[in-house]
């Protein structure tokens, strides 16, 4: 049976005042896949804002499809072409100090084919509304991924939002 080994590459937490994005740069191509845990909350008057991801500072050639469950109904939809839609994060309208939990998996990130992504993101809210998102994304670009930007659409990431990048090695 193939054994997958997770190696911590980097982790960072947003400090006081918030940040527009978390960028991981100079990512080595020595792993098989990448995985990211992203705990996200937006500031300003945001209500379940969309979280997004870009590779290599590119804002073209993305596509994504998602399933979104609210607990009482389910919908599906498509993300835009300028970033991969991760899902609905927590915003300032949601209960204070709650964060959306996200897992992102990027197989064959250093290969020479288009890059696929799978994402699950669950928002947290001590109220009726909260969402579970399952997304599949594609970056139609054959370049190796060397940088990743994580952000919330239009608003800053709140203090204590955290992203952790792992390299996955298969043996």
């Amino acid at each position, binding site marked *: 049976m193939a054994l997958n080994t997770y190696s911590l*590459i*980097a982790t*960072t937490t*947003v400090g006081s005042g918030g*940040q*527009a*994005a*978390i*960028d*991981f*740069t*100079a*990512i*080595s191509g020595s792993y098989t896949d990448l995985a990211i845990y992203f705990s996200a909350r937006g500031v300003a008057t945001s209500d379940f*804002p*969309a979280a*997004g991801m870009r590779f290599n500072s590119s*804002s073209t050639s993305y596509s994504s499809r998602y399933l979104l469950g609210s607990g009482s109904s389910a*919908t599906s*939809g498509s993300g*835009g072409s*300028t*970033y991969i839609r991760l899902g609905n994060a927590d915003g300032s309208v949601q209960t204070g100090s709650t964060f959306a939990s996200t897992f992102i998996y990027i197989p064959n990130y250093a290969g020479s084919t288009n890059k696929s992504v799978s994402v699950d993101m669950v928002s947290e809210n001590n109220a009726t509304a909260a969402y579970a998102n399952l997304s599949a994304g594609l970056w139609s670009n054959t370049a190796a991924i060397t940088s990743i*930007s994580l*952000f919330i*659409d*239009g*608003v*800053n990431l709140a203090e204590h939002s955290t992203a952790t*990048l792992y390299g996955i090695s298969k043996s």
Partner: protein
Amino acid sequence: MADTKIIVNCETGEVTELELTAEEVAQREADAAAFAAAKAEEEAAKAEQAATKASVLARLGITEDEAKALLS
């Protein structure tokens, strides 16, 4: 004060804060506008669906719970 982002250099471990470039600010504004438009469209579709549902229930003369019971 301009918005900043965190840059984590995975090779050196160095963490820096950098102001967004004019291009990044413009992209951010475009993303926000596109998301707002998509959200408004989604809300309008939901409202239309709810109105259709209410209209059908009214014509049938049954409640939503009774409709659910019929379909279960």
